């Protein structure tokens, strides 16, 4: 399906372009891909081709950049994407218990998505919040100083939260 910016995104794209010298439009690539992702949930080939056209660069240049970065996603996530930091400081403060809890309560492990697409899970690298470890980022929200109790409460809250369509559906 061909992709096109919505009116709101078009306005935001114009603002993004203002940040970079006109002869270095390509610098707007990552911010532009974030806009596609925000509108569509993830990056499709059509979305990437569209941006290539808007920035006067080749589709392969877009693909080369898009595939390098973990936050630029090429497939949909669950409505609540649980990003568990399992790097050293979080590991020392019990991040493996959080992974186990996600398995128990949501039935998924890292790299998986629940059948109802409410949850997906990913092990991530240090989130620069080691002093308040262990840390889980849910979509963009940081949850810090987690304990098995507070994380269990959080998962239950997310489980019962009303959602419309899953993000990226």
């Amino acid at each position, binding site marked *: 399906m061909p992709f096109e910016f919505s009116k709101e995104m078009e306005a935001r794209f114009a603002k993004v372009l203002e*940040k*970079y*010298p006109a002869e*270095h439009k*390509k*610098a*707007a*690539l*990552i*911010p532009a*891909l*974030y806009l596609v992702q925000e509108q569509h949930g993830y990056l499709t080939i059509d979305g990437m081709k569209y941006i290539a056209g808007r*920035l006067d*660069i080749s589709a392969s*240049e877009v693909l*080369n*950049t898009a595939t*390098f*970065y*973990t*936050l*630029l996603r090429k497939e949909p996530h669950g409505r609540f994407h649980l990003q568990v930091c*399992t*790097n*050293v*400081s979080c*590991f*020392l*403060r*019990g991040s*493996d*218990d959080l992974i186990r809890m996600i398995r128990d309560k949501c039935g998924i492990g890292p790299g998986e998505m629940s059948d109802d697409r409410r949850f997906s899970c990913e092990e991530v*690298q*240090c*989130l*620069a*919040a*080691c*002093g*308040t*470890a262990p840390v889980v*980022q849910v979509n*963009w*929200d*940081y949850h810090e100083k987690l304990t098995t109790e507070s994380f269990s409460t959080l998962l239950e809250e997310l489980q019962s939260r009303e959602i419309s369509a899953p993000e990226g559906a």
Partner: protein
Amino acid sequence: MATENPGTNCLLRDGDGNDYTDLKVYQKAGGYAKLKERLTMSRDDLREEVVKANLRGRGGAGFPAGVKWGFLPKDTDKPVYLVINADEGEPGTFKDRYFLQKDPHRLLEGCILSSYAIRSNACYIYTRGEFYDEIQTIDKAIADLYEAGLLGKNILGTGYDLDIYQHPGAGAYICGEETALLESLEGKAGQPRMKPPFPAIVGLFGCPTIVNNVETIAAVPVILDMGGDNFAALGTERNGGTKLFGISGHVKKPGLYELPMGFNMKKFIYEVAGGTLDDRPLKAVIPGGSSCPMLTPDEIDIAMDFDSLKTVGSMLGTGGAIVICEPTSMIDVILRISRFYSHESCGQCTPCREGTGWLYRLIKGFKDGTARPGDIDTLYNAAEHIDGHTICALGPAAAWPVQSVVRKFRHEFEAAIQNGGLAETA
């Protein structure tokens, strides 16, 4: 938190009840008060204060900031850029986030002063993509400055023009390396460039560029307020000022503390951070981010500054210490670290791309019980072959901690072979 600091609280003022994200609150505490005066100072005098302050770069390498600014070409007809490294991603490090989250104007005032000093009219802040809320905070603070006439054309009638733009990263640790960061800012994959040329000569968009860490630049207004000499005097001989030190892992009070450079590490762990978690016996300390060689308990009676930590074969790095206690297995710790570097290698240099994966798989063998006796030496040698053979410092950063663990905790690897692997620990 702030009240317990044995430092001077010139950088860290969290918990004093003020919301410094609000421009008015920041100004009420003295922020931007002398901006006009400083933007009419001679640029050389301004840089001289930073040189006098002995401000060593806070991004990890500790290069003196004022000296780096001096590497810019004297007469260039190209634009000069200041780029702020807000990609904070070194495991164990969580200091730059403090400014982005709680005191954005400290950073922005530093950006204005530093841009002026280096004759730049455009400054980019490259902020890691995960910091979604922080990105909003910084964007709002920038917008407030334009509105107040503190950014843009002819700031406060001084004739000086400056624009500050924020650019988001997208989840790649390597983009913290300054030349990878520049590639990423130009819209490309974050693969480090060969140096020389250094960014001061050929940087962003092919123009002279200074890349500095968030904390480095946030210290600049503080330095000008108290004077370079006074800032320098807070620290040790070649390590000026105070700094934000983080502590995480097995301590009672993990968190961020402002301490003078050269503060004693043992005191940091046992007094400032309240001692080890549940008073468990200390096993190892990673002094300043996961790439620093580990210290054993008999090595921690040491001053935390760039020069002192070198004398025990380690580094100050970012000043984010990670404390590890019994009964944690060092194999589990180094497994996490080696997985990280193998995941984050950009893949351009064969010794790093292949070597980091190899280190990880060898270490995994000790955990899973498939390692054979010769593997301990193989592991050490593999690490040795990465160091010194790569474009950027990620390769060595992956190798050093492995070498230090093999040297200092060899018995754990031997035991793992004998016991056929590791039991689960945490």
